[in-house]
């Protein structure tokens, strides 16, 4: 057993887990954060993507002890209180989800993708960047649409903020 201390969605948490416990299982079973899903055993599907120290990580590829000391954001921590994150809002507006199982991983990947492309995104880039996330329901059509729309909304928001600051 090992001690694990993390900051998850802004809160300090600690616990002890078997050495072989994966981060995804620690989040789901020890912290009750069941929004992060397990869809495969080979780190292919991306349903378990969370942010570890600001970067998108498949939480099934990492041991909980490895993550100790990190700051983690899961799908439960993305919205600002009652206000949805622009990516969440775009997934709803553009029907970017059906059964909802891959959705948390998709949204966490998308927010990371948008952050890494301040210059903006195009369809080909979004499709290439979604390589690590599988969806069986949507044919990706509306997921791509939602990510492009969110990217634009966030760029406008950033410009607005920059103007305000000036």
């Amino acid at each position, binding site marked *: 057993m090992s001690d694990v201390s993390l900051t998850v969605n802004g809160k300090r948490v600690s616990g002890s887990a078997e050495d072989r416990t994966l981060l995804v299982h620690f989040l789901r079973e020890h912290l009750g954060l069941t929004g992060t899903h397990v869809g495969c055993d080979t780190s292919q599907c991306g349903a378990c993507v969370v942010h570890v120290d600001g970067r998108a990580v498949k939480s099934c590829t990492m041991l909980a002890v490895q993550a100790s000391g990190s700051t983690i954001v899961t799908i439960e921590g993305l919205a600002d209180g009652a206000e949805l994150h622009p990516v969440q809002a775009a997934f709803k507006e553009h029907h970017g989800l059906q*059964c909802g199982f891959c959705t948390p991983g998709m949204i966490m990947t998308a927010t990371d993708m948008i952050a890494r492309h301040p210059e903006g995104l195009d369809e080909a880039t979004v499709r290439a960047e*979604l390589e690590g*996330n599988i969806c069986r329901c949507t044919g990706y059509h509306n997921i791509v649409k939602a990510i492009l729309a969110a990217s634009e909304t966030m760029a406008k928001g950033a410009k607005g903020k920059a103007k305000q600051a000036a």
Partner: protein
Amino acid sequence: MGIEGVGARVARKEDKRFITGGGRYVDDMVVPGMKHAVFVRSPHAHAQIKKIDVKKAQAMPGVVGVLTGKELKADGIGNLICGWMIHSKDGTPMKMGAWSPLAVDKVRYVGDAVVIVVADTKGQARDAAEAVEITYKELKAVVEATKAIQPGAPQVHAEAENNLIFDWELGDGKATDAAIKSAAHVTRMKIVNNRLVPNAMEPRAALGHYDKAEDHYTCWTTSQNPHVARLVMSAFYNVAPENKLRVIAPDVGGGFGSKIYIYPEEIVCLWASKKTGVPVKWVADRTESFLADAHGRDHVSTVEMAFDKDNRITGLKVDTIANIGAYMSLFSSCVPTYLYATLLSGQYNIPAIHANVRAVYTNTAPVDAYRGAGRPEATYVLERMMETAARELGVSPAELRRRNFITSFPHQTPVIMAYDAGDYNASLDAAMKAADYAGFTRRKADAAKRGKLRGIGMSCYIEACGLAPSSAVGSLGAGVGLWESAEVRVNAVGTIEVLTGSHSHGQGHETTFAQLVTQRFGVPIDSVSIVHGDTDKVQMGMGTYGSRSGAVGMSAIVKALDKVEAKAKKIAAHLLEADEGDIVIENGEVKVAGTDKSLPWFQVALASYTAHNLPAGMEPGLKETAFYDPSNFTFPAGCYICEVEIDPETGLTEIIQFVAADDFGNIINPMIVEGQVHGGIAQGVGQALLEGAHYDASGQLLTASYMDYTMPRAGDLPSFKVSTSNTPCPGNPLGVKGCGEAGAIGSPPAVINAITDALGVVDIPMPASPATVWATIRATKH
């Protein structure tokens, strides 16, 4: 239509929980005292079980129970059933072997469940499962259906000689043979429909909880039809009587058919919960899903299509061998028969059709319905034949199809179906226009200059949704009725709950169904809740599959709404001292037409429950129930066009454009319908280009993970061009047809027609992977 009524693109009510991590799937459920199960599965495709030794496993840390099939049988748990009886053409019933939830004497495919291990943690259960010692005597296995019916092939079940479950036919053999004999042209092909794994993103799971004090069971399960699960587990598997068994299918992460069936795991978890005295949860890992979820398709067909001198089809003869796998899954027998051969007329006037289907056991995972279930196989046969025939006859694929289209309705086909409405020219025209079909020659020439091979292919599909009516399917061998139920419960404050027997696992029922209520009473959509997926809440239901929730499930809601509306009008007429016939309900108000007299909706609801002033003899309350049994199938149809560009150096196929023009009848929420089409196309393109379940000759599944089985990813697909041109269905009150499976049905032949067009070959096997395309190009060159 209003902004939230019928026809509006209402954003989904259910989305908030999914986008904030608040979805509740079976694996998210925690019950106090809950333990975790792991199944020990057969590593062999075919073997006798000589000995099972669980002693070591029982002594492992955290282990609560290690249970075998012998103990299960001793407790009287029944074998799994197949819910549709098919008779061979000689009149004998299908020859079905036993499927025990835990194998007792023999294992018949890799993944067959043998032992359940229950422990405090999943890790401990896994460790203990490793310590279970099973001695097998390996037997020779057979994995291909065409080989399994050869004399001397390994025998999967003693009951089915030469592994032949049934040899069934439909249509007029003599007339078809005569048409072929006298034809001006006959097109002949061998057509293979590849085996697929459905791959809902949420793996199957079950949580069984036996409450000793109440002698009552609860089963949380990843099911598309919880009431059917309860019925079958109660009536056939002897788990518990229905009143002592609650089945809950909460949020379910996709189904595509694979979660219709009642599998061994949920039965065993319930039984094991009683046996061990603790709640038992099992969640499949992905490899388990590949091994033990029901697979789809796997047909080999020999087909002849006869034409007269005017290129009109005069006959179609189809001989199909269907791989059923090692056991007969719940609906496995109706998929290659009544869901397949009945659709072989397609969109065409065909005077004579004969289909012969042999269903065959093999040492592979059970095969059952997967998105489309029989209709994709029929469409693939027909639309590959039409394409090949057009090339042989030297006419354009569109022209050959147009010449043979059915244009007047109703139309009785020679294979049972009576089409009620459609306009096949309209969808073909719409698709060709959207694809700029006329400009293809120029685009092909441009591609050739760049050293690329362009091809274009079309597919005109028809399908049948809302399997019905119950009396008809009963006469064809179905073990169940195929109606749907609904209850509309108006609360005293005017908010409304709709309890439905349909089950949503991605289809957006919580929104679409609520739109019907909003349309009817003009109440805000947020004041309407859709309740589904729990046998303790919803009276009864047949669930969601075969694109039936629109045509059947919503029709039941409409019937219940009719009753509520009638009663509300009676109450309002009484309160407003008006004639019942003059009452109208709109925008949340109940009015007397042509006057300024009105009541807010909630006051009528409240009046029904206070019951202070109701018409004489009226029962209090405003809650109505309805069952709806359709009079016929519905017949969605459409035209899909795919344009591809192939790199001859690598064999890589790029889909340049994919156009879908569908006829779904009336549409309640176009946004959701488009989403269904997108997803269906992705699965159909997946089948054509990427996906294939492969067993080696010894019966080992070679494609048992996402590293081996190619799932369509975002980069494999384009954005789709979808549209609809609709003819309302005359058979149900909403005029709807169904849209859930069309994409998966119509797209594979469009893709393969495009690839064979680009390569100038007659056929290419699915999936047309880069390696297959490259090899085909090389073989053609030499």
